[in-house]
């Protein structure tokens, strides 16, 4: 999955723009309009934090579980979307507890999947830029390097770090009040 470090994010929304462009026609920048600006990650700014939020590619993907048409499929490292299957029921939108999947009218994909030009809605979420050779566009453009690709190796490292932290705490004997035997 792709995840961001809120400590580094400055809320500039460059990732949103890069995302929208990565999922549009190559010359879309000149013709970008509010209707065709469809980023798959959204920068949330609150009083306390600013960070982009995007699909966590859940192992037990609730969106895929409730989808009645097989539009959302659990793949090897991501939850994949088959846009042409979407009937726009929005079950996935309600099921996702992160708020990172949306069902939108998609003009951009019409020529590719529906040369007929019929109206079309589809589930839109982070696809890890799988059709893009260089990997996720948001990661590449972030000026503060706040966005990371998290794969199983990174997760393993994180788990190791936490174990080391726990071990260190035991040795110190709870110098910061954590796992202190003296206090028990």
């Amino acid at each position: 999955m792709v995840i961001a470090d809120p400590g580094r994010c400055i809320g500039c929304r460059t990732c949103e723009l890069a995302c929208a462009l990565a999922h549009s026609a190559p010359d879309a920048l000149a013709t970008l309009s509010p209707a065709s600006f469809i980023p798959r990650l959204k920068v949330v700014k609150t009083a306390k934090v600013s960070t982009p939020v995007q699909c966590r590619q859940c192992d037990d993907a609730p969106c895929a579980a409730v989808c009645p048409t097989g539009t959302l499929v659990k793949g090897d490292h991501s939850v994949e979307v088959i846009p042409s299957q979407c009937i726009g029921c929005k079950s996935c939108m309600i099921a996702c507890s992160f708020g990172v999947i949306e069902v939108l009218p998609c003009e951009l994909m019409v020529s590719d999947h529906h040369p007929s030009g019929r109206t079309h809605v589809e589930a839109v979420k982070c696809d890890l830029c799988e059709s893009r050779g260089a990997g996720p566009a948001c990661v590449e453009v972030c000026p503060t390097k706040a966005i990371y690709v998290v794969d199983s190796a990174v997760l393993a490292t994180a788990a190791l770090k936490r174990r080391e932290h726990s071990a260190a705490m035991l040795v110190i004997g709870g110098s910061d009040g954590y796992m202190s035997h003296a206090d028990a």
Partner: protein
Amino acid sequence: MTTITLNGQTHEVPEGMTVLEAARLARVEIPTLCHHEALGSYGACRVCVVEAEGPAQRRGLVASCTLPVSEGLVVLTDSPDVQRTRKVLFELLLGRSPDSESLRAMAKRYGVEFTRFGLGAQHDLCVRCGLCVRTCKEKIGAAAISFAGRGQGRNVTTEFGALSELCIGCGSCAAVCPTGMIRVEDGGGERAIVRQDLTIARFALLMCTSCCAPVITQKFMDQRLQALPEGQAEVLCLDCKRQRTAATAGSFPNIWS
């Protein structure tokens, strides 16, 4: 794999595919109204007409969405015969639904801007493609709308034309409608599913438990989210969900240090 010839080019396509699917795979343009990948073939609108001939297929004009590929099939998607037939089909559809912008745009693409046929005051936006009816029954499982009547009186309607008790207010019918006949109208905390002149159903929307924005209907929560573990379905709007995601992002395992 099956070998077919599409507009003079040979293509290897998986067995059991329809000619329409094979054409889309080969990026050959065929217009459709009643076809949706999630629902399979139906053959109602006929605008996907092609000319086909093969060892197992007598030469003729057929709807490509219901024609399975067969070895040695020769398909023409834009021959003079196809063009002429398709134009008449669009004229007939325009006679039924002259006000549909999406249908007019599609017809114009294939050289039809006027129709010789007309139904007078009887015209509406519906082309009777059945996508809404099939989506509601086959995918959502509600079967709130279906066809009733015959001939010119055939119509998509609820049981006895009354407000539907089966509708769950998901709006899939409106999402798949190729002509804009069915709409979802949200306003004042209420949702109405409307077929031009007939209200299919009306709902009070549940409010976001955090910001009170209208989110979804109770019936939708009850019927569409059964696959989720107990208690996981929550009535929360997208913005509030995202804000919660952002607020908890900092507590993610410290992989950044």
